[in-house]
């Protein structure tokens, strides 16, 4: 990139690079979803977990008479922050530095991983402890560390289940939501050398096994890596919201702490946390407050890590910011309420989305971070029912952005291919028919031919024809009536309009 300001031509920032990280799946959503739907155990696990959390969330949200006012404040705070991002980034940078921290900037996943690797190598360790973090999942940090011989130990219970099960996370908050207690017990017995063979599948016993397994690691760890839920520009304060205490262990015990934070996680001032600390716990775990929240500013002599590094990560976020109809996806505070209410997520689970960001928010965030064509099927992974918008604590209009991204995909596809897509051709033909009353009346009458198809059940199921097959694969179609509305109107009203 040369001369970014001089020409005045708004060049569009690049998406996250290919070949690194976990934003792109190996297959399209429909085929991945079909496989997930066939897994009855998975569907039972997901159905149970999402039902539990939906009820809990609804109860604690109902306790607050000013929930809607908090949502609106949260939304406006985010909109304001995104509009003043350079100022706030420079503010947090100098505030952290003033308190003894070191700030690094990373254009993308490769650069962020390289910075972490260099820092870890300089400490001469071959093992680091990690606090659950979406940003480090997104950039594939564990894989990058492994490639240079450093073991990254996940310490969040669900992340540990995923890591020990050689599995992938399927939920933002509870990455092992697709596993039930019996499966978790089996993984622990198989993978934890120190697990008691008599371990029961009671959640309390499983949590106890994780405590025992990680305790020695925590007490001897030299380097920890975390993400951040919030970074306060005014003070340089970072916050991590958690439940188990593994976060506190990582943020307090090691000598060195490295925090990777997306540039969109900024909050202007300390006071603003009063909004997000009410919105986030109630939306995510359905608790009035999560058990532990840690906040630290740079280095505190005698208390906690004496060396602190903050890595500010772009990795496609500025590309999202450049789309006025899609940029609100950056306002997400990663609560995962939209996953838990989504009828599509509830049935397919998170793996079908291919990205570390699944569910409705993933369907609008992942394609924007990677460029739409690398995740083109995700904006269609929705029935547009709007439940996600209703629960979003910062009021991201997810259905609207989904529709916008569908249009963007259609346009990008058309621009890149000389032959239009089947859908685009059908739409063009429909436009030709519908723009003329005579053609339209004839077309409607021809619909009666469809009656031949649905004689048995009075609905039309699979139609084994190109295009029609794609539609009817997943949907029944109403059998057309004997008479069109227009013909009925003409008969009843004698041609009067």
């Amino acid at each position: 990139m040369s001369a970014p300001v001089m020409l005045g031509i708004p060049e569009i920032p690049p998406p996250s690079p290919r070949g690194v990280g976990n934003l792109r799946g190996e297959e399209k959503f429909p085929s991945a979803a079909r496989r997930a739907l066939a897994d009855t155990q998975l569907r039972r696990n997901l159905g149970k977990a999402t039902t539990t959390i939906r009820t809990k969330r609804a109860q604690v949200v109902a306790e607050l008479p000013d929930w809607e006012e908090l949502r609106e404040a949260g939304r406006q705070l985010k909109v304001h922050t995104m509009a003043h991002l350079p100022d706030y980034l420079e503010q947090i940078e100098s505030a952290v530095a003033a308190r003894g921290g070191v700030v690094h900037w990373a254009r993308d996943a490769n650069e962020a991983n390289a910075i972490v690797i260099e820092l870890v190598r300089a400490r001469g360790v071959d093992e680091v402890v990690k606090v659950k973090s979406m940003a480090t999942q997104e950039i594939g940090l564990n894989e990058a560390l492994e490639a240079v011989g450093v073991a990254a130990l996940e310490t969040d219970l669900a992340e540990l289940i995923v890591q020990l099960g050689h599995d992938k996370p399927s939920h933002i908050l509870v990455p092992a939501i697709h596993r039930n207690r019996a499966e978790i017990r089996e993984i622990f017995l198989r993978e934890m050398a120190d697990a008691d063979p008599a371990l029961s599948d009671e959640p309390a016993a499983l949590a106890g096994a994780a405590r025992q397994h990680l305790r020695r690691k925590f007490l001897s760890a030299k380097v920890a890596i975390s993400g951040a839920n919030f970074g306060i520009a005014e003070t340089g304060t970072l916050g991590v919201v958690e439940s188990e205490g593994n976060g506190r262990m990582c943020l307090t015990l090691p000598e060195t702490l490295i925090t990777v934070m997306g540039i969109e996680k900024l909050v202007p001032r300390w006071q603003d946390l009063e909004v997000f600390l009410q919105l986030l716990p109630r939306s995510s775990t359905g608790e009035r407050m999560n058990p532990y929240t840690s906040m630290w500013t740079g280095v505190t002599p005698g208390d906690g890590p004496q060396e602190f590094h903050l890595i500010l990560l772009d990795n496609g976020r500025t590309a999202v910011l450049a789309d006025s109809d899609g940029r609100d996806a950056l306002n997400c505070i990663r609560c995962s309420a939209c996953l838990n209410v989504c009828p599509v997520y509830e049935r397919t689970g998170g793996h079908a989305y291919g990205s570390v960001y699944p569910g409705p928010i993933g369907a609008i965030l992942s394609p924007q971070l990677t460029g739409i064509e690398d995740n083109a099927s995700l904006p269609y992974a929705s029935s547009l029912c709007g439940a996600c918008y209703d629960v979003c604590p910062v009021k991201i209009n997810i259905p609207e952005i989904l529709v916008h991204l569908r249009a963007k995909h259609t346009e990008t596809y058309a621009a890149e291919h000389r032959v239009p897509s089947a859908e685009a051709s059908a739409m063009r033909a429909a436009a030709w028919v519908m723009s003329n009353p005579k053609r339209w009346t004839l077309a409607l009458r021809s619909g009666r031919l469809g009656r031949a198809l649905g004689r048995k059940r009075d609905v039309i199921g699979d139609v084994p024809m190109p295009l029609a097959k794609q539609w009817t694969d997943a949907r029944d179609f109403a059998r057309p009536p004997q008479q069109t509305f227009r013909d009925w109107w003409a008969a009843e009203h004698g041609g009067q309009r």
Partner: protein
Amino acid sequence: MNAREEVLARIAAAHRAAPPPDLPYERISREYRTTSDSSAEALTELLIDRLVDYRALVRQCSADDLAETIADALADRGAHTVVVPSGLDSSWTSGMSGSILTDGLLAHHRRTVSELDGVDGVITGCAVAIAATGTLILDGSPGQGRRVLTLIPDYHLCVVFPDQIVADVPQALARLEPTQPLTMISGPSATSDIELNRVEGVHGPRTLEVIIVGEE
């Protein structure tokens, strides 16, 4: 161009391509509640309700009975060796019979991790308590100690005074200095990672006991 310059240039380019709405900080809507007209008694009652709901143990006592109440709590727990942060009012522990380790910020006062792992519990005060959420906030001041102190021992006994109890999150944050290391604690360590059911007891203290000092 280095990474810093490039990220800032990309943001500038994004803002040129899609000019953001003009919403000054002062105009951000803040219609939510930031005050409460609940009485001190009502707030104490709410705090107790919320603490108990998240499986913390709660005792109430008068200021005169504090030492005795702490001794009772430790005896019931079977805690013989406890660690306390420097600056903790020594009268609080005057009734207990076991041994007390004191931990301070200065290097030669700091207890090692294995020492902390060997004690039966920790006693601290707090900076603020939030009634609506059942949250205790420690800010590292004298009597609250380093963060590690309330993390390694399996039992945390925290003393709360009535003037430390506020209604909700906004009132609590207004009382805190953000650059101090802060820990917000709402119940004992827990997880919702197995089938999204809350289970107490993972890496932090598995038992949290709160003594609320009242006027009675």
